[in-house]
């Protein structure tokens, strides 16, 4: 049987009187690409924030399994702890370290694996030096692989928009995650760029042995690479299934596809 990497159990998020996410039950299995779709304001990003510890769900649990036979309840843990456990994410409205270089952006993502303490780092003890070299070598390899090496000294904010999206994904990859959460990776991209991104997501899944959970509006991307799709509307899951089933689902068409023709 294939291992379930992430599972949400009855996750509910309430802000004052507003229920942003209601009884969310998602299962993400190893090596899958799962999509979460729904109209704007359906609660998708809130669901991501519940999983990555930015919010603590009002009700329910988030269970994460980093390896076979190991299950961790990550509900309400700090975002940094969750990242250290192997869940990385990107943000809907790109959150790069704007004033830092491309290289530094990615190098910073390696910090969570650092074992030397700050004194060892300050005094450049051999253990730290070795780690620093390994981190830099990793980042170099990664940046070369995704064709960002040539712009490594540029400020992150000076990159064109599309490249910033890629950089954010690469930065997430540098944390060596097992589960990658992408929040609208294709936002603002044209069809050609979206097609490239689709290919890229598939590649990194295989290359880094990832499980991917993403929020996306571009339906061609979603339909092409998702193993399964969850549809959210007003915080509630209105449909689940493979792309073909979702495309033909009456409720989904009514709630979502019917209104949003640019799909």
């Amino acid at each position, binding site marked *: 049987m294939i291992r379930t990497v992430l599972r949400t159990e009855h996750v509910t998020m309430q*802000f*004052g009187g507003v229920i942003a996410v209601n009884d969310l039950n998602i299962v993400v299995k190893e090596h899958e690409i799962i999509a979460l779709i729904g109209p704007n304001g359906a609660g998708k*990003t809130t669901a991501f*924030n519940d999983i990555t510890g*930015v919010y603590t769900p009002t009700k329910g649990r988030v269970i994460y399994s980093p390896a076979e036979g190991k299950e961790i309840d990550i509900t309400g843990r700090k975002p940094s702890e969750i990242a250290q456990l192997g869940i990385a994410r990107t*943000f809907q409205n790109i959150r790069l370290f704007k004033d830092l270089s491309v290289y530094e952006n990615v190098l910073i993502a390696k910090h969570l694996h650092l074992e030397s303490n700050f004194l060892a780092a300050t005094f450049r003890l051999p253990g730290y030096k070795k780690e620093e070299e390994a981190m830099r070598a990793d980042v170099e390899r990664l940046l070369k692989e995704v064709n960002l090496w040539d712009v490594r000294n540029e400020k992150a904010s000076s990159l064109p928009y599309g490249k910033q999206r890629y950089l954010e994904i690469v930065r997430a990859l540098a944390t060596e995650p097992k589960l990658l959460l992408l929040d609208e990776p294709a936002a603002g991209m044209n069809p050609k760029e979206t097609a490239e991104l689709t290919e890229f997501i598939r590649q990194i899944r295989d290359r880094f042995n990832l499980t991917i959970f993403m929020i996306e509006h571009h339906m061609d991307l979603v339909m092409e690479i998702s193993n399964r799709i969850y549809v959210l509307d007003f915080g509630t899951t209105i449909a689940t299934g493979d792309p073909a089933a979702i495309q033909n689902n009456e409720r989904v068409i009514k709630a979502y596809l019917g209104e949003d023709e640019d799909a």
Partner: protein
Amino acid sequence: MELFQAITNMTAVSFAQHMVNGISLGSLYALIAIGYTMVYGILLMINFAHADIVMMACYFALFGITTFHIPWYLTFILTIAATALLGVIIERSAYRPLRDAPKNSVLISAIGASFLLENLANYLFSGRPLHFPDIPFLSSMIDLNGIQVQAICLFIPVVTLACLFLLLHIVNHTKTGMAMRAVSKDYEIARVMGVNIDNIISITFAIGSALAAIGAIMWGIRYPGITPYLGVMPGLKCFIAAVVGGIGNIKGAVIGGFILGLGEILIVAFFPQFSGYRDAFAFIMLLLILFYKPTGLLGEKMTEKV
């Protein structure tokens, strides 16, 4: 147990005395705290200079009476007007140019403005304490059944509450007040809806500074040693009062002011051995409130959008 003993050791008269002191100090804090909370509600910044606006108002009143020999009641009105103007000038010159700048720059500018006012006062009026003139009746001591009270102490809470009700009326029942609430709720939307943000901000500073001037005048009568740095400690405490009450909330600021004023006086009254730590009380309150209820007693919950 110790508290119990301390209370029982105190006579009713001296307790009443402390209560009067505490309430009048609390009222003064409340008046000044309103200015902090209004500005924070709209611009999300600590107006560090507010404390020094209080100080400047004291000097305005002092010089109006002593140097220019203007009758005290007229001086008070002029002082309130001049202080409101000063508040608006500070906003225009130190804060408005940084409207779109990073928050830390605004903070530094506010600190700079505060520091400039202090140094300016020190330069112009010298660092030596000047004596606030005695005001007929208000400065005199009266005897209420054995409690010795300065007459102003009886007026301070009344004036404060009157100001509070007037302000609440303005905020809740006038067009300007509605615009102020709109800007404080959502700056961008208010702008789009056609609210003249710059005007509203100026009015906010004018009102806050005018209240500070009223507080300052009563402060001067009550504590007549006027120095360039007199606003600093009360200023910090009043900002804390605003945080305790729930920043951005006018009633909260008043409640916070009373808690701080009364608390400070009563702690010293019950535990004279801690009198040296009187100024630390406010900061401990700040930590407690931020730890247990960061939004303050009457504040609304704010969630940051990710």
